[in-house]
């Protein structure tokens, strides 16, 4: 069974480049442009991992990850952002309980490794049921 990853970023070029990097990965990659679309997607789909940017118009990534934790706590949460405000980071760790934070510009190896670890965490959760 292929696990699914959901990518959330307001810049389409970022999503395209991430998708290219995950071209040969053993996961399905879905992309959305904003928080509203992400939440709508999660109502009917079940990805193992959500990777979200923080600074987006309308609603920010931190609030998305907080809501994901609340509503679908099993989904592993990762923040991928160029915005490195300490306050945001602390809240991301403590409130949204993110699994990892990746700073932009990201390194492909680091990204792939973290995705694997995140999916592994997700499967362990499932097994513990």
């Amino acid at each position: 069974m292929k696990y699914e990853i959901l990518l959330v970023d307001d810049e389409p070029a970022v999503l395209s480049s991430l998708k290219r990097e995950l071209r040969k990965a053993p996961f399905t990659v879905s992309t959305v442009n904003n928080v509203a679309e992400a939440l709508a997607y999660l109502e009917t789909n079940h990805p193992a991992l959500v990777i979200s940017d923080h600074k987006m118009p309308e609603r920010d990534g931190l609030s998305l990850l907080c809501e994901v934790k609340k509503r679908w706590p099993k989904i592993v949460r990762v923040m991928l952002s160029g915005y490195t405000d300490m306050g945001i980071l602390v809240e991301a760790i403590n409130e949204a309980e993110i699994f990892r934070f990746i700073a932009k510009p990201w390194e492909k190896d680091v990204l792939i490794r973290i995705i694997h670890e995140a999916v592994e965490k997700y499967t362990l959760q499932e097994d513990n049921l």
Partner: protein
Amino acid sequence: MTSLRILSNIALKIITQKKGFADRINEVLNIIGNHLQVSRVYIFRDNEDGMATSNIYEWCKKGIDTQINYLQNIPYTTIPSWKPMLEEKGIIFSEDISKLPEDLQDILAPQGIKSLLVFPLNVEQKISGFIGFDENIIHRKWSAEEKDLLKTISGIISNAYSLEIKEEALRDYSEMLEKRVAERTKELRDSLEKLSKAQNKMIEQEKLASVGLLAAGVAHEINNPTGYIISNIQTLGEYFSIYNALMEAQEKYDGTNHDEVCQLIQNIKDEENFDEIQTDITDLLKDSLAGAQRIKNIVVGLQNFSQPENEDYSRVQLNQVVEDSLYVVWNKLKYKSKVSRDLQKVPDILGNANQLEQVVVHLLLNAADAIHDEGTISITLYQSSKNIVLEVKDSGEGIERKYMKKIFDPFFSTREVDEGTGLGLSIAHGIIQKHQGSIEVESEQGKGSLFRLIFPVMDKETSENH
């Protein structure tokens, strides 16, 4: 000389202010002494607390010893009878001092005084000294006329003395005031300097803070394109390897193994999802190039944003600026909207025409972008008392209330990410500020927006210098 004559002489002497007070008094004492042929004439002044008295002026007949140096700071406690007598009777007179109280005899006898006549010196209705006349040679009977004359003279001298004391006090006071003013002025100057320094520091800190904010904003804005450019180039490398593999496979053809080679090539294509790669390369290149342009624009925008060293300001005709700006953007505007203009002749302002054109162009482009199907853009230029006003109005989508405060923030943008850097309005704002002007915005969602630039008219001096 008659008493009247003497009195008028003395009065004149005292009134005539040409000489200093001491000189005048000494001359007066000289006149009296000679006229009356007394041994000594003197004036005593009490100390501030009234507890002691000192001899301040003295005239001695030839042959009579001076006493002034010994008669300093004499406590009234040593001559307790003195003051009460002056206060009660207004006079101390004695033909023979041996008839006076003992305490007085003790001080007078050693001076060789045989008879004396003393009147109080009144300053502001208070006795603050006395004027006296000694007779050392004989026991003198003071005539009524002499008493009257000397009493009157004492009165004149008292007055003159009161005046002198008041003038002295005035001089001291004015000196003190001057000193205080000088001190205060220095204090004020110091405060001003401190304030000025503090203000400069605050401006520096504000600059640093905004540089900090800008740096943070820039870093964030540049991180995104940097991220996907690097990623895409890496991916391109992978794609390149695939193309290489295909080339190598093709080169394996030796004339006989056609099917094998085709199979090899097909395998590679299947494994790598080659059809997708072919279209993806086009997208990849497009994205990356756009990203690099974006970074370039941000840097250019930043260069505009920072304070340039040389500001070449000269007379600017805003009418011309508007015309030039319209010329630049005409192609973009003409399809989207009807452009109307109402440009009145306005006086020149002092500024940089290029920068102002940059601002007007930006406003016009924003206006065009706000219009989606069809609409109007209107430009007005007019003078309103001491200001010149330039308005760019559009009938576009308007600005949401919640964004109104933010539109001049650097990097703030309501548009798609690859449409502009978000620096345009904040740069425009900076330019207008440097021109001593201001920008106002009015907007209603769904109806349109109006941007108003206000410039001060050049004052006469500036106008003459340029």
